[in-house]
């Protein structure tokens, strides 16, 4: 194979040009390599502490193709367990969610407790003395950790700690987690959808400020129709906005937006009767954090991408979104709403309303994003056009949210992980 075809990215910092080989979106071999080099190596989002509040609460999850159980044990510890009987493979948890003291395999009735320990084996006297229940507990991923309620797992035992892995993204998770004095919670209801497109197109899209005014014109018209002041106009001219490389492939957009924020940023569609209430909500943040951090938490929006595939967009509501490739041209997406645990029923209803104006597979924006991604994937069939361009703002000292620094941050890390093992192999051969 010629060298150009093997190269995934062109990162010409002197010229200010950045290109991505479209093979990265279409090649089944590339996907296999991603499974080994990305999804088996990186910390992956599993769920949130609030989803299993009580001992015995569990949720089935599929992460990186693996069926997992997120469960809070009778010792109150939240664990991630691989959902496969250590005997012969059958999935021991058969429900999407619930509360259980034990998981009993339906095949031969091996029974595991909520900590994953094997506590029951019918006819155990048939086994030799070498048979060990301890060895046959449900298996956990090599590393599981939590940062401020967000639970991650990593299938690489040699990977750095979650704390180090998150790097600069911790500051932005803090800005989300600090929105509650009691702890944030995932709201009931999971948006389970898909796109006939490569998963990395959704990474790019989730923090793409450039597409806002063209793809989502109908959303901004809706905002204007319901009485929101859109004189701020183009996203690129918004004050106090920036795109940042947070390290390890994570990136964020931070900006002041026209839309209201249920946390404490009132806009006319929320209703005059709520104005005083919102001022009161805001004062609580001023008291807890001082005016500057309170302003940042309440008024600025953030699109955060945690490498490789966790999106936490704290915009007109907070969405937590993760997605996995099934094939190069098809991904499955799961999305949730995150809210302060202490939020009143009325405020929570307003938050969900605001969420649905833009977000989700029936919102006024997400379906158009899915459309653009799917359209791009179909466009890639034109193999004569081999590269996509992500050069915007490359020569700017402070790239704006309508530039493409955030995507370049992702792709540089992606390329590093995808090509490092090959370099190692090459060195060994030499």
């Amino acid at each position: 194979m010629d060298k150009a075809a093997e190269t995934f990215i062109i990162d010409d910092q002197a010229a200010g040009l950045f290109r991505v080989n479209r093979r990265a979106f279409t090649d089944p071999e590339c996907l296999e390599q991603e499974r080994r080099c990305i999804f088996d190596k990186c910390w992956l989002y599993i769920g949130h502490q609030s989803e299993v509040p009580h001992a015995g609460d569990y949720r089935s999850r599929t992460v990186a193709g693996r069926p997992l159980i997120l469960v809070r044990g009778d010792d109150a510890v939240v664990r991630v367990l691989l959902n496969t009987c250590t005997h012969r493979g059958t999935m021991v948890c058969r429900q999407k969610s619930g509360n259980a003291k034990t998981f009993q395999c339906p095949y031969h009735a091996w029974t595991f407790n909520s900590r994953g320990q094997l506590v029951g084996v019918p006819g155990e006297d048939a086994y030799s003395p070498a048979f060990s229940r301890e060895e046959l507990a449900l298996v956990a991923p090599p590393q599981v950790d939590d940062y401020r309620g967000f639970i991650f797992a990593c299938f690489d035992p040699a990977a750095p700690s979650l704390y180090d892995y998150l790097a600069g993204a911790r500051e932005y998770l803090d800005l989300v987690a600090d929105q509650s004095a009691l702890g944030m919670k995932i709201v009931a209801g999971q948006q389970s959808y898909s796109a006939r497109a490569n998963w990395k197109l959704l990474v790019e899209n989730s923090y793409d400020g450039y597409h806002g005014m063209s793809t989502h014109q109908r959303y901004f018209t809706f905002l204007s129709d319901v009485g929101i002041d859109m004189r701020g106009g183009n996203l690129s001219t918004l004050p106090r906005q920036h795109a940042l490389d947070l390290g390890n492939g994570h990136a964020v957009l931070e900006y002041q937006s026209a839309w209201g924020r249920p946390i404490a940023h009132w806009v006319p569609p929320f209703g005059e009767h709520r104005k005083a209430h919102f001022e009161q909500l805001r004062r609580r943040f001023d008291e807890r954090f001082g005016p500057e951090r309170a302003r940042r938490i309440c008024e600025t929006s953030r699109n955060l991408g945690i490498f490789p595939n966790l999106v936490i967009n704290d915009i007109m509501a907070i969405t937590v979104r993760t997605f996995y490739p099934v094939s190069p041209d098809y991904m499955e997406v799961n999305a949730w709403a995150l809210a302060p645990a202490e939020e009143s029923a009325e405020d929570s209803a307003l938050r969900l309303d605001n969420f649905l104006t833009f977000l989700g597979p029936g919102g006024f924006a997400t379906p158009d994003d899915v459309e653009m991604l799917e359209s791009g994937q179909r466009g890639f069939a034109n193999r004569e056009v081999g590269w996509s361009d992500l050069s915007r703002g490359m020569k700017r000292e402070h790239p704006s949210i309508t530039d493409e620094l955030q995507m370049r941050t992702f792709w540089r890390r992606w390329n590093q992980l995808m090509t490092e093992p090959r370099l190692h192999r090459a060195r060994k051969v030499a």
Partner: protein
Amino acid sequence: MSAPELPSRQEVEELLYREAALLDEWRLEEWLELLTEDATYQVPPTDVPEGDARNTLFIIADDAVRIRSRVKQLLGKSAWAENPHSRTRRLITNVRILGAEGENILATANFAVYRMRYESADTYIGRYDYRLIRQGKILKIRERRAILDNEALRPHGKISFIL
């Protein structure tokens, strides 16, 4: 207030079939005329099909303002997910009148909605729950809830038309 006189099943079927035809033909302004001024349109999430939109993240939970905005958007140019429009075909069956609740008439029906676009065909399967109300002689839709049996919007990806 006395309970409303229940309509015949035929009358409800006529309304639902007319609605299905208007939606399939993208005659959305005429479809709005079937709704009351305060009508709502909801699609619950696939994992909490009987949820309440005030405390559960739905897929769609339109109030009267958002329904009208949705129609305006879908008939405009920049609802890219439906420009060009999908073809849809709705099969409405098992229509039942469940009774009255206050002034509302409760009715339910099963649906299979096929959406064809870019030579893919996706099937939305589920149940409609309706709250109907008689305004003068005319039966109008006050609430329509499309409850999906699909476990996920896969491979549908989205509900970009009016389900």
